[in-house]
């Protein structure tokens, strides 16, 4: 085991909520007074864990609480968690943008951070000037930037615009240029926040590839992304943060699994493979939505070899007409298709007597690995009566299949895995 390059001990960060007014001064004076008497900061004990959805009296929250982990050289570590879990705060503390409230972090080697794309870009300056400016802001020497200029320009693919002010660039071009600079920074430790969300798919791929290369060169990456697919591919380990506290450190698959099981961003529902709804006083309502495989196992991760079923139960209290179910399936946040029960049976739109209905549909087999979310709608006369957006979440994993030679390998472009049948109508045979 080699020595770690990042070591974090009991790292905590407290924030004060709300605006600053005269009340702040009172707190500051109390703090100062405690300090003068050699006592501890009185506000360090009252902080609460940072659950953004719960309103509370306390104005002090722990954005990070007792974070402990070590990272070894060459590791790619993914930070996982819902919005507000403390991922960005952790990166900010490690990149020295803000200081910790308690605890210590030790870092070895040069630290480069990319918390935002294009920090310090100046719209009036040309592409070339901005490469110099941005590069030096990120910690390079000028002559280093000059040496890498050609690589950067080539990576960004903006050679034609090099002498044009950045204000004339499209936003995509700005992002490409900015990432290109950061990618050539060559720090020993690279801290990357969710910055790849911008830029087109092809460029994202290129960036992820570059990050993979970087880690192969023995440099360490700490990485935040909501693209769980790329996380799974890039990272060797994951750190799961929940409300500022560490929920899990270890294998990336386990971390992602735990994340998805914890609700993974879905705001409603206890599990992510089954949701049961409370009874409400309305003519028709959804009762239960679940997914499972052929064996009836409800899971959060499925493999290519499995067939995935979606089952929806709903209740109709009085005889009615024109009630139906519609679903939409999204892959990595992008809607792939809509489907509804009446696509198959048009007569289902007819009269529906009161009672409980259960409908089951198999998800298509052309899905490509990724994070999937299912939305379910109870339709009435063509309009959604109940909407459950992104109510279920699951990961489709390709690790049970060797896709390395296939066109639908997860690192290749494309969002579907259709099993197309190729038929040669002519095939010359040499004798």
């Amino acid at each position, binding site marked *: 085991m080699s020595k770690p390059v990042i070591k974090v001990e009991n790292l905590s960060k407290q924030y004060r909520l709300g605006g600053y007014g005269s009340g702040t001064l009172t707190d500051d004076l109390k703090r100062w007074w405690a300090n003068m008497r050699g006592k501890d900061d009185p506000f360090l004990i009252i902080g609460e864990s940072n659950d953004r959805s719960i309103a509370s009296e306390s104005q002090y929250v722990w954005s990070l609480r007792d974070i402990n982990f070590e990272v070894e050289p060459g590791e790619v570590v993914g930070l996982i968690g819902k919005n507000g879990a403390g991922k960005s705060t952790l990166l900010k503390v490690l990149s020295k943008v803000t200081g910790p409230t308690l605890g210590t972090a*030790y870092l070895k080697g040069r630290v480069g951070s990319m*918390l935002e794309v294009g920090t310090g870009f100046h719209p009036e300056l040309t592409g070339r000037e901005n490469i110099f400016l941005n590069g030096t802001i990120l910690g390079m*020497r000028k002559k280093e930037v000059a040496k890498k200029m050609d690589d950067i320009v080539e990576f960004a693919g903006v050679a034609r615009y090099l002498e044009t002010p950045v204000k004339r660039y499209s936003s995509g071009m700005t992002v490409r240029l900015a990432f290109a600079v950061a990618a050539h920074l060559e720090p020993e430790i690279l801290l990357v926040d969710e910055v790849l969300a911008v830029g087109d798919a092809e460029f994202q791929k290129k960036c992820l590839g570059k990050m993979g290369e970087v880690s192969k060169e023995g440099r360490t990456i700490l990485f935040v992304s909501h693209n769980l697919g790329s996380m799974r591919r890039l990272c060797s380990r994951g750190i799961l943060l929940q409300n500022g506290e560490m929920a899990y450190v270890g294998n990336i698959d386990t971390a992602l699994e735990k994340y998805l099981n914890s609700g993974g961003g879905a705001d409603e529902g206890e599990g992510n493979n089954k949701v049961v709804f409370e009874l409400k006083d309305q003519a028709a309502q959804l009762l239960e939505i679940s997914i499972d495989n052929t064996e009836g196992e409800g899971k959060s991760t499925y493999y290519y070899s499995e067939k995935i079923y979606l089952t929806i139960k709903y209740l109709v209290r009085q005889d009615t007409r024109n009630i139906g179910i519609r679903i939409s399936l999204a892959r990595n946040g992008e809607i792939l298709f809509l489907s509804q029960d009446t696509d198959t049976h048009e007569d289902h739109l007819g009269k529906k007597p009161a009672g409980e209905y259960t409908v089951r549909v198999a998800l298509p087999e052309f899905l490509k690995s990724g994070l999937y979310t299912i939305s379910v709608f109870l339709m009435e006369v063509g309009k959604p009566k109940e909407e459950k957006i992104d109510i279920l979440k699951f990961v489709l994993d390709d690790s049970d299949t060797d896709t390395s030679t296939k066109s639908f390998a997860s690192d290749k472009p494309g969002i579907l895995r259709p099993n197309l049948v190729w038929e040669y109508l002519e095939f010359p045979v040499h004798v």
Partner: protein
Amino acid sequence: MREMREMRIGFSHSSHSSHSSRSSHSSHSSPKVKDQYWDTILSPKRPFFQLKLGEVWNSRDLLWLFTKRDIAQLYKQTILGPLWFFIQPLLTTIVFAIVFGGIADMSTDGLPPMLFYLAGQIFWVYFAEVLNKTSTTFRDNQSIFGKVYFARLIAPLSIVLNSFIKFGIQFTLFLLIYFYYILIKGLPVEVHWQIVLLPILVVLTGLMALGLGLIITSMTTKYRDLTFLVTFGVQLLMFLTPSVIYPLSEVAEEYRFLAGMNPLTAVIETFKYSFLGEATFSWFYFGSSVVISLILFLTGVLVFNKTEKNFMDVI
């Protein structure tokens, strides 16, 4: 109270094989760890006295690029461009000459009003600009400071450098008028050897303005009350600084000592004395100006470095 101690963050790109040479200073805040191994230690505690000038030196390229950026930005979309650097002090000087020299008939130590006021103006403008702009460093740079770490002092230092370049241009204007008076008007001028102090005078002005600016920006991240004072305070300060509008010799005897202790007054008086021959020069005033400027500068840098750690949380 929340600070972090650091030893070195790699802004120089020296080979990373020489870690052993990057030793830490003091280890009282983290005695248990092998300090030789880590390059950066982030913790709430840190020694009080930390200037971090080495870090600034390592990012000197950035200082230059920032300065260049700001200058380039200034020229953009103006017709007269750098000529404005001439017009601004020239107009002020003429107005001063008319109002204070003409209407109010105030003393100029027997010097031609144009030279007297211009000499005061170029230093005052330099001082005021550095003070005004550095006093909002944190607010002006919060978006970039919030996203990336680099030696924070680079931002205010680039302002000083920028203003210094403008000062250079305006000093050229002063020299033009100066030689016009000597060569064409035949003004008898007694030049003193203290003229060699000029570089020191310029540096002193920069240091005291920067120091004050850093103190102010650090004090206004959380409570902005002081910013109200700064905006009009700087204007008032001009009237309270002898040598800009009126010579030190005109100040009533009982206040002259106090007025002479104004570090900027000593600078301008020394300048006028050495170039124009007429002003109050004293080693005592000059010396105290040096001491005060250094104290302001050091205090400013210390307070700034302390604030920089967590200002993002409160601004």
